[in-house]
């Protein structure tokens, strides 16, 4: 990159699980005013943890700028329900929803719904199938399907509704299934919600790279993270955005980060422990290669305060962060073009015309 060329600004996401459901409103508003571009919600089977998608939905009407992005499992859920729920999330958030598609590798989750335990390549196959169902159902209503034509008495134009007609592929490791459609909710405001998945789930023989919009990349240490970002980028190509995962423990309230006695994390993410200044340097350098970074604060209200006061303002001053846009979409945060509809009658005509 030449020095005269403006640097590509990135985005920052923050995981808000530390807020629980009791302090969710306060936390998401604090994250929004700090200038975070996205808030994410985990769906791990931890005691006391409410449903991630519902927390995201609760956050939707309280905010105007920050994207709301829940994790939703693809293995032990119903793809039809998941698709409808996520489309609904897009409506209640005004087009700021995304989906971190996860594949639970959990005997407990399997037993809870009486299904057999999925492992290995079956996980990526379930995820790929669920994402494909979701995407087909989101497209199953064209954008202008609701016509409200008083003269003919038609509320919808039936030619703009399409069956999804999904069937799991031959050789599917799990139990084969099909989904008919169309969706029971019109196309989401964004057309297609951005889909994110762990980089380890995406690639050849796994979830196809063109099925997701972004991957979450993690490495054992901050030092290894940059190398991993470069690796994943070369493996998946430029069309998939890269979001680096980083746990953070900051010096705060007169205490050094190292002395804060934060228990070790089992997240598998790199963990940064230190000052706001050093974190700013690290993020600035990560954002040279990655499109965004998702931060997992050790203690939400403590670390969020430091991030908001010291880290984000400095990154913005350096031009490392794109400006959050009020009433913008999550697609825009990720730099995605408006989503074309695979069933669109006008798009089909363009293709037929040899465009």
């Amino acid at each position, binding site marked *: 990159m030449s020095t005269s060329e403006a640097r590509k600004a990135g985005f920052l996401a923050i995981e808000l699980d530390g807020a629980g459901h009791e302090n969710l409103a306060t936390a998401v508003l604090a994250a929004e005013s700090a200038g975070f571009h996205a808030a994410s919600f985990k769906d791990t089977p931890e005691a006391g943890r*409410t*449903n991630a998608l*519902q927390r995201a939905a*609760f956050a939707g*009407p309280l905010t105007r700028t920050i994207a709301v992005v829940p994790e939703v499992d693809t293995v032990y859920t119903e793809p039809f329900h998941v698709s409808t729920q996520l489309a*609904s999330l897009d409506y209640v958030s005004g087009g700021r929803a995304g989906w971190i598609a996860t594949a639970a590798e959990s005997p407990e989750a399997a*037993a809870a719904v009486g299904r057999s335990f999925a492992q290995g390549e079956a996980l990526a196959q379930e995820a790929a199938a669920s994402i494909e169902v979701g995407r087909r159902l989101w497209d199953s209503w064209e954008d202008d399907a609701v016509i*409200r034509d008083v003269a003919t008495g038609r509320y919808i134009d039936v030619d703009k509704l399409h069956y999804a007609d999904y069937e799991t592929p031959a050789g599917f490791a799990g139990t084969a299934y099909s989904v*008919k459609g169309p969706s029971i*909710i019109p196309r989401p405001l964004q057309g297609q919600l951005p889909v994110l998945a762990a980089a380890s789930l995406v690639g050849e023989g796994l979830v196809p790279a063109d099925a997701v919009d972004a991957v979450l990349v993690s490495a054992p240490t901050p030092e290894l993270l940059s190398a991993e970002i470069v690796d994943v980028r070369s493996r998946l190509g430029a069309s998939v955005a890269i979001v680096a995962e980083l746990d953070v423990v900051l010096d705060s309230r007169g205490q050094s980060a190292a002395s804060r006695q934060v228990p070790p994390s089992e997240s598998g993410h790199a963990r940064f422990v230190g000052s706001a200044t050093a974190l700013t340097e690290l993020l600035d350098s990560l954002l040279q290669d990655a499109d965004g970074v998702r931060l997992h604060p050790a203690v939400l209200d403590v670390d969020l305060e430091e991030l908001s006061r010291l880290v984000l303002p400095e990154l913005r001053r350096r031009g490392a962060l794109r400006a959050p846009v009020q009433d913008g979409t999550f697609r825009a945060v990720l730099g995605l073009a408006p989503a074309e509809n695979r069933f669109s009658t006008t798009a089909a005509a363009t293709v037929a015309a040899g465009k």
Partner: protein
Amino acid sequence: MTREIFQPSGQIQFGIFFQGVNSGTIWKAAESGSQTDFESFRHIAQTAERGKFAAFFLGEGLRLREHLGRPHALDVVGRPDAQTMLAALAAVTRNIGLVATQNTTYNDPADLAHRLSSLDLISGGRAAWNIVTTDNAWTGANFRRGGYLDHADRYKHAEAFVETAKRIWDSWETAVGPARRVFHEGQHYTVDVTPRLPRSAQYRPVLFQAGDSPDGRDFAARQADVIFSAHPKFDAAVEFRRDIVARSIAAGRGANAVQIMPASEFILGATDQEAQEKKAWVRSLQIGPQQAIAYLEQFWGRELSSYDPDGPLPEIDPVVEETSETRGSGFHGAKARQLADQWRAEAKDKGLSIRQFVISKTARIDSTFTGSYTAVADHLAQYARVGAVDGFNISPWLIPTGLDEIVNHLVPELQERGVYPTEYRGSTLRENLGLETPARSEDPAQV
């Protein structure tokens, strides 16, 4: 005071049923807003809360209604997922209950129980589940299991499902845990789960039931807190109450154990005449000429577009072979021809055109209260006095402003008569409905 004798509360409450899918909500009027924008839901929910409504309901339909083999084009269609929408509404309301209609066939009990607990916690104890029992293969085509449940098994399955959900909700000994494992092995599924969520402020979600068969009523008498019934007319409501009281006592619960809130529609005005004129206008927009023809096509199983909606019913006979579940309920095989004969005779007798006949047949007619604010308030006060119902579940015919006149004019009349709450009793739905905290179900670890 014996539990064997029903005690009227002398009060009625309101719920709002945002239908989202039907011919009841007018979309052709200039005032009709979006059926999917969050602002429509917010406006309705906040208006209801201003009117001290007990609950905000969302229905469920897991496959688009079809007509002659294609999605039905004429009525309002396409609605958000209930629990996702209610979680969002929890953020912009304080007291109103949030009721999600969810069926027991195309959900997993552990997953559904968890999500309902989540909604209950996120909303501070305001969640409820309206239990429905869809079983048709046509809906099943959207799900992994496909159409797996026999009609006769509907309520057996629902009961096992609800029992399992209750044990999941009851599994935390105290508000802070720890949980006891819940195991259920049934004909259709096995559940083995250590529940993750504590009790909410109202202990567990309130249970509504919608379904009217004898099996459905018995199921409600055993399991539900409130029935979302289909009997709002006074005499039918009194009879339904008597029936439910008897079933509740037979089920070993008290005479007052199950509340009743029928589906209803209100068409109001400053005077009776104004309300009657409004009703004619509302009906003409609910059932337009195309809808009248389409309604008959459902039963005739064939295209009837060459018939004049303002003329007599078709002389040709219905196509019987094509009868399928996609053509609506209450209509099977040879019944079709019989029904057509009957309808033709009835329409001729009363001198009704296709359109007039269809308007007269639409079920919602029976659930409508029409009149001046004072007349309707007097009428509803009678229900309260004898305890015919505990409340009404109102479907507004206009979105998003359809509750405005009810809240602005009818509610104050009812409050003046002392039959409607002037304040919320508490912060949970259970408190606001005046329901008792449920007894913990027997040892949750038990199979």
